């Protein structure tokens, strides 16, 4: 909302500088986003008001003229190209050295004297554009005839315009009077209301037009006045100025006055050409099926039954509360008008304007909810201005159709409300003074020392006050929140939930970061192409999408984190050469699941994905570089599960995203919780990834979290007897799984640890075989083992392995 300060001052006197006022308004809830300075560059001695005393012809140029400008005491002759000059005209004159917007460069430039086609010109007569007033650069700015000659233009036209971001609860502040009331509360000033009086003729309005409201749910009040013999013309300069500064385009005096009063009171108005209304009546009703109206913007609008229309005896003439129709439009030939000031239901207005995608200044105000009491004030003010500016006769009386009298609802405010909400006691006199300064009246009061109880009537322009808390806010914001003490909650602390998935995710983040992985976060929305590229399009789980996507790139909810992490990897593929990439993401995936009544419902689950690709270490001097492989990824999963105290196993996986050999399901408590594997070449190609081995893991975190509950790590006491170390080196068929041999070794009761320390193929080993070397720890809780006991146990174990896996000791056949 644009509020020119010069205009605001017509309703409330104040001394504050614009910035100071803006700061105060911002603190009480009217956020001033910026202040436009009109005439910021008009130096007092450089840009002044002048009068054209004579106009000579340019000796060398037909289109140029040489006006002489009176500037109070002196007169100057300059060159001017504008064709709207006349003798006696008041204009804005710029001396040499003035800062003006240049027509050519569109930037501020300092005016220099120049010789134009042989005639010297020192100074110029300015256009609106040159003064920075508008985009209009044709012709010079014409000032009103009473503009004082010689006065600095800044004192006459200069202004500061507040640009206020009005919150949706304050439609009253979409008007200069609403803002004036706020200023009054801040400064202690008194708002002066505009003149609403006018003379009426003898003919009564009732004999001329009848009004009926058929649907009072949608329109609670409908008022009209009627003015005959008006003179349609351009509005006076002062009115146009205010409209322009408020960002409203002047049209003609009638339309301008309705807009002006809307900006003044916040009540939208509409004028109909009376002679175009058929049947001498106006009906306010719901639209009928298949009905339509052509609105003033020349659009044919199909109407729905929830929309409200203003009709004459034949057809709709306006879309109530939003825009007039072309049928009864005021034009240059209009002689009589009826002026509408009505109250429309906010919900239906919003629904209608959303449906028709037609947002107007009127609908913007109505949908925020206006008080029906406002209609009469605006109607009388506009009627009075029309009579004053457009002439004519106002018919006697006015139409006022309403269902019932509007009675202001009292809102109670007690000392208890204040201390209950704010945590501080406030003196009843201070409360009363603040509320009065905002226009509230106290109808009833009970005061007993610090205890009090007020019955408060909100002013007719405020539609946002209905409960005690609303009044508490009024008091608090005007008084200032800095005057409320700072305390700490003193009541008991609620009990907690240590198994929240948030804590679980935080642990996982820390674990992965601690082993050198980088966390990424990406968008929840993706597209069919990316889902397809990661093989997730034709899964059993249907992907679903956003109704109103911003782009086709981000249309579908991701049903997997795979496209996200592969895209992230692809964006960073240059790093793979240099230092390898180890990244993970924790986030939600979305899919349809069975709802309560068997129908599909969108649903979401928390997942973890990670990828590793490229070098194991960052390149450094004297370092041997290796590429990461499947077992680096497996090691991460093992680390994770160990630290989370979860049991872990791996089974072969059938996920077709992986190379066949190197993929596994991650198993926890006999449940598949995720997958791990080396990504196949097709996926790498699809996402334009580096061809080097790409390791991937994915874990369903909600499942894993549910398995991790109530698991505490148990301390295992050390063995007090020393253990003995033995290495065994075995040769087995290549297809025997090392994990199976290890499991068998660990079945031996004396073996407390077994780790694979070497795996070898090649020279010295038959082609279909591999050599595996385990390092074993033998120990017992009962005493130190003798070498006999160990040898015996070891021999039994080797025999078992030989039998089960067809293995033999490497040394035995060397």
């Amino acid at each position, binding site marked *: 909302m644009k509020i020119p300060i010069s205009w605001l001052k017509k309703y409330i006197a104040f001394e504050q500088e614009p910035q100071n006022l803006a700061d105060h308004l911002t603190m009480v809830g009217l956020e001033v986003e910026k202040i436009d300075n009109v005439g910021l560059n008009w130096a007092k001695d450089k840009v002044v008001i002048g009068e054209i005393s004579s106009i000579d012809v340019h000796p060398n140029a037909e289109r140029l003229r040489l006006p002489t400008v009176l500037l109070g005491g002196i007169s100057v002759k300059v060159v001017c190209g504008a064709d709207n000059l006349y003798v006696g005209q008041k204009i804005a004159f710029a001396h040499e050295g003035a800062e003006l917007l240049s027509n050519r460069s569109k930037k501020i430039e300092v005016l220099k004297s120049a010789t134009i086609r042989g005639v010297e010109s020192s100074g110029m007569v300015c256009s609106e554009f040159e003064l920075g007033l508008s985009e209009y650069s044709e012709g010079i700015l014409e000032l009103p005839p009473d503009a004082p000659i010689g006065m600095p233009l800044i004192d006459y036209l200069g202004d500061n315009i507040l640009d206020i971001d009005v919150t949706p609860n304050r439609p009253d502040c979409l008007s200069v009077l609403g803002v004036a009331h706020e200023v009054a509360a801040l400064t202690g000033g008194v708002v002066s209301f505009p003149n609403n009086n006018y003379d009426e003729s003898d003919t009564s309005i009732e004999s001329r037009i009848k009004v009926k409201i058929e649907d009072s749910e949608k329109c609670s009040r409908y008022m009209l006045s009627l003015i005959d013999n008006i003179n349609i013309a351009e509005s006076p300069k002062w009115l146009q100025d205010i409209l322009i500064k408020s960002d409203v385009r002047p049209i003609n005096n009638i339309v301008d006055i309705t807009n002006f009063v809307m900006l003044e009171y916040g009540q939208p108005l509409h004028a109909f050409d009376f002679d175009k209304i058929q049947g001498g009546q106006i009906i306010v009703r719901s639209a009928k099926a298949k009905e339509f109206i052509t609105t003033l913007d020349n659009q044919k609008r199909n109407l729905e039954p929830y929309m409200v229309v203003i009709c004459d005896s034949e057809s709709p003439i306006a879309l109530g509360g939003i825009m007039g129709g072309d049928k009864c439009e005021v034009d240059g030939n209009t002689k009589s008008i009826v002026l509408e000031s009505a109250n429309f239901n906010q919900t239906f207005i919003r629904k209608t304007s959303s449906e028709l995608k037609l947002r107007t200044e009127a609908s913007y105000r109505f949908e925020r909810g206006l008080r029906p009491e406002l209609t009469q004030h605006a109607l009388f003010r506009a009627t009075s201005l029309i009579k004053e500016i457009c002439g004519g006769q106002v018919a006697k009386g006015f139409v006022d159709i309403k269902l019932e009298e509007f009675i202001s609802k009292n809102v109670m405010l007690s000392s208890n409300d204040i201390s209950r909400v704010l945590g501080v006691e406030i003196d009843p006199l201070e409360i009363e003074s603040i509320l009065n300064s905002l226009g509230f009246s106290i109808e009833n009061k009970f005061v007993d020392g610090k205890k009090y109880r007020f019955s408060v009537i909100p002013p007719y322009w405020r539609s946002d006050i209905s409960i005690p808390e609303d009044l508490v806010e009024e008091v608090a914001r005007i008084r200032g929140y800095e005057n409320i003490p700072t305390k700490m909650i003193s009541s008991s602390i609620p009990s907690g939930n240590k198994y929240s998935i948030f804590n679980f995710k935080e642990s996982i983040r820390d674990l992965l*970061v601690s082993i050198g992985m980088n966390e990424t976060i990406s968008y*929840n929305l993706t597209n069919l192409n990316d889902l397809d590229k990661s093989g997730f399009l034709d899964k059993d789980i249907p992907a679903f999408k956003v109704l109103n996507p911003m782009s086709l790139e981000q249309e579908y909810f991701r049903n997997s984190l795979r496209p996200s992490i592969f895209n992230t990897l692809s964006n960073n593929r240059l790093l793979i050469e240099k230092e390898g990439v180890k990244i993970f993401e924790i986030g939600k995936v979305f899919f349809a699941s069975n709802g309560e009544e068997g129908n599909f419902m969108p649903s979401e689950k928390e997942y973890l994905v990670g990828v590793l690709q490229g070098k194991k270490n960052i390149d450094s001097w004297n370092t041997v570089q290796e590429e990461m492989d499947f077992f680096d990824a497996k090691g991460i999963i093992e680390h994770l599960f160990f630290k989370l105290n979860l049991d872990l196993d791996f089974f072969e996986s059938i996920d077709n995203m992986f190379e066949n050999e190197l993929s596994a399901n991650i198993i926890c408590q006999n449940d598949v919780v995720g997958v791990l594997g080396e990504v196949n070449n097709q996926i790498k190609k699809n996402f334009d990834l580096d061809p080097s081995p790409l390791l991937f893991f994915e874990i369903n975190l909600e499942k894993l979290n549910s398995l991790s509950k109530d698991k505490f790590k148990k301390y295992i006491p050390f063995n007090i007897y020393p253990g003995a170390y033995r290495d065994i080196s075995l040769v087995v068929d290549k297809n025997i799984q090392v994990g199976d041999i290890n499991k068998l070794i660990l079945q031996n009761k004396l073996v407390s640890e077994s780790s694979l320390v070497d795996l070898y193929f090649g020279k010295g080993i038959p082609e279909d075989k591999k050599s595996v070397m385990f390092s074993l720890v033998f120990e017992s809780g009962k005493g130190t083992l003798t070498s006999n006991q160990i040898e015996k146990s070891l021999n039994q174990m080797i025999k078992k392995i030989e039998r089960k896996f067809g293995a033999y000791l490497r040394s035995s056949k060397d």
Partner: protein
Amino acid sequence: MSEVLNIEKIGQITDNAISEISKSVSKDEISNLRVKYLGRKGIIPALLRSIRDVDVVDRKIFGQELNVLKNNLEELFEEKINQNKEDLYLSDKEKSLQDISLPGRKKNVGTLHPTSRVVREICDAFLPMGFQVVEGPEIELDKYNFELLNIPKDHPSRDMFDTFWVDWKNDQGEYPLLMRTHTSPMQARVMETTEPPVRVLVPGKVFRYEATDASHEWHFFQVEGLAVDRGITFADLKGTVYEFARTIFGSDRKIRFRCDYFPFVEPGVDVSIDCFICEGNGCRVCGKTGWIEIMGAGMVHPKVLSSVGYDPEIYSGFAFGMGVERIAMLKYGIEDIRLFYSNDLRFLKQF
């Protein structure tokens, strides 16, 4: 026949050895000399082996002389090494590494996403004040995102939340699902399922249908806070937020509350801290105002309390909500919000 040993020869070898050893500088030179004289195929062992060729009479003397020489050389080598340990003990390769300006070997350093990091910092600031973290769905029902928060259908306050709707119709042909526009729906969800007292924090992703630029993303994070109990007042909100701001932005922060509007609180405020960059003097970050907005807050609206079955006559509470990226941008001096989710590791690895 091998060369006949004589005493002069031993003397010559002794002189040579002593001179060479004394001239030697590096560990490598010394060990080479040692091999030359004392090694398995070295000069002294060769002489000792050749002793059988010496006349029987002289053998004993030569043997003694050679052993003395051998022992002397052993001592010399020992001495030489001990004397110059710091210098000579290092191999050439090791010496070349005696350069502390060589860079340290780089480690793969893991990093949390800056958003996760700041979410954690925010939560950590509130946890000591008795708050607990809960999370909610990212796809929400209109009911929780709007209606229970005093934002009815066809209400202009919905303009404050440009919404992505989910393409999914219910049996009534309505679209009841949306991508949550704020973390506030969890206020209603928590209160619906919990008896007071309530003190929760809700971090999470939220979504707004708006064009992106350096300061706007359609996808960002918020942290919501809610405290409800008997007797909670605006003064408690002030204290809680003040404590938070000091933890996150420094202990000498000033704080400012100005009136603002959010449909689910009354009174509603916007909270600013004094600019920690210019100390309140006015700079680009604070828009020359000296103040930086960090969150919206207020007392939970009585309508919200009653809509979830809390009696507003008995219970009261406050709520607040803040944008995580905004706090991260302020803390780390990040100037473009789009960096957060474009996942460039050159950005992510800085945190």
